[in-house]
């Protein structure tokens, strides 16, 4: 919802702190998630994540959430899905070139980042190209997997399972 999305940017600091706490809670639940099976809990967790973040941020479920690096303004709401800053077409009133009724998500991101400790430094980081395979999957579970296993294995594990694919060779014993 657009009004809530703007509210979230105004409260970027609190939301970021809240997420940090939530994330460490999730990481502590890794044992439980692993026991239940990450692929089995993926659909319900993704549904909850979509509901919560959809309401607060108009989340598009790209599966590679960068809200903490974009001042709690979701870059996937940019009509060009820019993840590295605003295009050159921002209007003089700070609105979007493509959707004149919408405020530029990057003008908002800049404001939100100033409210988050370390937010501006995070905005300066280059965000790599999105992996379109992650679309619709849970960022929360991906983060837990990344934080609890070696990077290469986590990256392989966080991908949607391929049907009839050979077993990945890099899975740790």
């Amino acid at each position: 919802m657009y009004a809530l999305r703007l509210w979230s940017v105004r409260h970027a600091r609190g939301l970021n702190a809240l997420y940090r706490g939530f994330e460490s809670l999730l990481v502590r639940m890794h044992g439980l998630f692993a026991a239940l099976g990450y692929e089995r809990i993926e659909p319900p967790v993704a549904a909850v994540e979509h509901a919560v973040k959809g309401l607060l941020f108009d989340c598009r479920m790209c599966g590679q959430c960068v809200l903490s690096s974009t001042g709690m303004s979701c870059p996937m709401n940019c009509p060009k899905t820019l993840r590295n800053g605003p295009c050159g077409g921002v209007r003089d009133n700070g609105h979007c070139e493509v959707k004149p009724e919408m405020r530029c998500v990057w003008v908002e991101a800049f404001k939100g980042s100033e409210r988050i400790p370390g937010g501006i430094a995070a905005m300066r980081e280059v965000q790599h190209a999105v992996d379109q395979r992650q679309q619709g999957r849970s960022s929360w579970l991906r983060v837990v997997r990344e934080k609890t296993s070696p990077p290469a294995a986590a990256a392989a594990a966080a991908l949607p399972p391929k049907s009839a694919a050979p077993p990945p060779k890099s899975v740790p014993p």
Partner: protein
Amino acid sequence: MRFEDEPVPGYPLPILPGHTSPGRFERVLRAGGFAVTTELAPPDSADPEDVYKRARVFDGYVDAINATDGSGANCHMSSLAVCALLTRIGYAPIMQISCRDKNRIAIQGDILGGAAMGVCNILCLTGDGVQAGDHPQAKPVFDLDCVTLLEIARTLRDDHHFQSGRKISYAPRVFLGAAENPSALPHDWRAQRLAKKIAAGAQFVQTQYVYDLDLLRAFMDQCAALGLLDNVFVLAGVGPLRSAKTADWMRRNVPGMHVPDATIARLQGAQDQAREGRNICIELIQQIREIRGISGVHVMAYRQEESVAEIVERSGVLQGRVCWYPGRDSAQNSQNRTAV
């Protein structure tokens, strides 16, 4: 500026130490010259002569020609094809790649293909939204953005592999560029955004039209404060305004275009508005040249391309230098002979 080894169409020049491309454009910039680039409006036609006609009007006055990639989201001959035609006879194009119409598979293929045909410069752009052009019903792609496009192009060149990790046997030897708009909001963020582009691989930057030099100066000061100017060549975007009416239309309808009221008022007060537009452009070029850290100008004269030569000539920025064009040296030789 004359190099010992002038280009022979179809044969790449050697790459000088510290250069990433064999192109003349990079050579002019790294030699400390004040570079002039322009933009070729690709024809709505399949006739190669339409491209050559449009290129010839710039002969002697530009170091490189941007081949636009569906600029303004309008359909025209592709940038890759325009570049292929231009390199065939030795012109130095800057191939523009926009993320709007192609995904990473197509774009990486174009980078290899362009380089294979002699393209030495690539300008990485996000692209205008489809709503701006003549096909608003089209699907916007935006698989990449300009920063990730730069990253992927640099990976191809320096690390010799696709984004997938698959190796390529011969890397594209290209000089990579980006665009920036010092006039667009948020002003405080523009230089930092350029820093990201440089971190991702940008070696030169061409700006959007600049009519408000205070904004450009502020942008350059921010770039200097961030220490960017040692790592990038900045070419400021300029262009003649045809009339007060067009200027006003452009600032209302062209994304990211800012024209101060004072400029419009000056045009309104002139008897010959088109001539006054060219005068304003020449004055801007002369003032831009004095700004520290600026390495050249990018002259965009949409639908008045024939005025570029006059503007560059009268601005005096080339200081008598005749930029290379096919046949330059034979033309000059014959002139010299008649003079003798």
